[in-house]
């Protein structure tokens, strides 16, 4: 029996013990994983949150010139509001929903998202069901998720297969015209930025 055969025959270590093992190995090699975890947790909990996208949307709804810059080239436009993207996300494409066009984003191959802008992807976005189905059964999946679109609405599904990243610019609800930017930002959800909900 080879070493890997005997390893496979053994009980698989619980996942948390496997995480401890790799963390301890990196620690022993002086790579300081503990310090990095603290920094990274701050980023995922406080900085890379859907409120960023919400603020960008609220600005686009209230500032026509910003909206045009955002739709023309997303990355420099969000930088104006202080939102950075990782260096490898070289392009942010902002997808404008209208009365007759609905955009929805996904990543069929893994879980790619503009996570610094729309927040880290929620659990269901990374699940097998959403990845398998939304490109092929977009209207059915959206309906199951509570968004029924009329047949005349054009659906555009965006599969994030490269480092170009996407954010949906939702349609502003008519009754909110004239609201302040801060009030409008409160309306915008992560589901709206992904495109599985309208606001």
């Amino acid at each position, binding site marked *: 029996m080879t070493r890997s055969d005997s*390893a496979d025959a*053994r*009980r*698989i*270590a619980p*996942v*948390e*013990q*496997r*995480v*401890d*093992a*790799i*963390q*301890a*190995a*990196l620690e022993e090699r002086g*790579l300081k*994983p503990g310090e*990095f*975890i603290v*920094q*990274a*947790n701050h980023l*995922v909990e406080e900085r890379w949150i859907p409120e960023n996208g919400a603020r960008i949307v609220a600005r686009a709804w209230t500032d026509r010139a910003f909206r045009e810059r955002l739709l023309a080239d997303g990355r420099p436009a969000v930088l104006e509001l202080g939102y950075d993207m990782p260096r*490898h996300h*070289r392009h942010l494409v902002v997808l404008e929903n209208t009365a007759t066009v609905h955009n929805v984003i996904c990543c*069929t*191959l*893994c*879980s790619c998202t503009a996570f610094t802008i729309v927040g*880290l992807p*929620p*659990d*269901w976005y*990374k699940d*097998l*069901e959403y*990845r*398998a*189905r*939304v*490109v*092929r059964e*977009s*209207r059915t*999946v959206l309906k*199951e*998720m509570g968004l029924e679109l009329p047949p005349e609405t054009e*659906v*555009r*599904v965006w*599969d*994030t*297969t*490269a*480092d*170009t990243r996407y954010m949906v610019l939702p349609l502003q609800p008519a009754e909110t015209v004239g609201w302040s930017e801060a009030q409008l930002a409160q309306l915008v*959800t992560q*589901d709206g930025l992904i495109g599985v909900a309208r606001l």
Partner: protein
Amino acid sequence: MDGIHDLGGKQGFGRVRHSPAAPAFHEPWEKRVNALYSLAVRLGIFNMDEYRHAIERMEPRHYLSASYYERSLTSLATLCVEKGIVSRDELERRAEGAFPLALASAPGRSNAPARERFARGDRVRVTSEHVPGHVRMPAYIRGKAGVVLSESPPYPFPDAAAHGVASVDEPTYDVRFSSADLWPSAADAAFVHVAVFQSYLERLR
């Protein structure tokens, strides 16, 4: 590779387990995994293409049954072993049990030798290739025709970058496909937009 990860258009899956304002993490260890793989990328132990490919190389039963962050952990550990940072024996000794890793990689490849520049409105076809290593062409667009809408900035070519093969950066094209062309008579009406690397495209005349 035509791997189990390439899920777009696969049938038989049930409803999306959706809840409003759903969390990204469920357990504290998931955040640690997320941080540890980012640290390894930052330290240059591996790049994002290698990371994605090591997830794709997981044994299919393991891939399908593992949670998202267990897949992330498996990729991190596999690459640390393959890069000589740590041995599998050490990981299994520390974990006090078996530590399943991804399977070995097939060879990568460089950019296509002849690549064309496309413009908005050009009709293109995705090449009909079966690539043994990493590739960012979902199988559902293989051989399919679409229309170019825009060009991205150049990116590292994933088929090469995941394997340490030399290559030049190349753009992707936003190609619009009709769901009726991708799955004739068997899809909801929609346009499907895919960012397709230049090497995967040929002009449709």
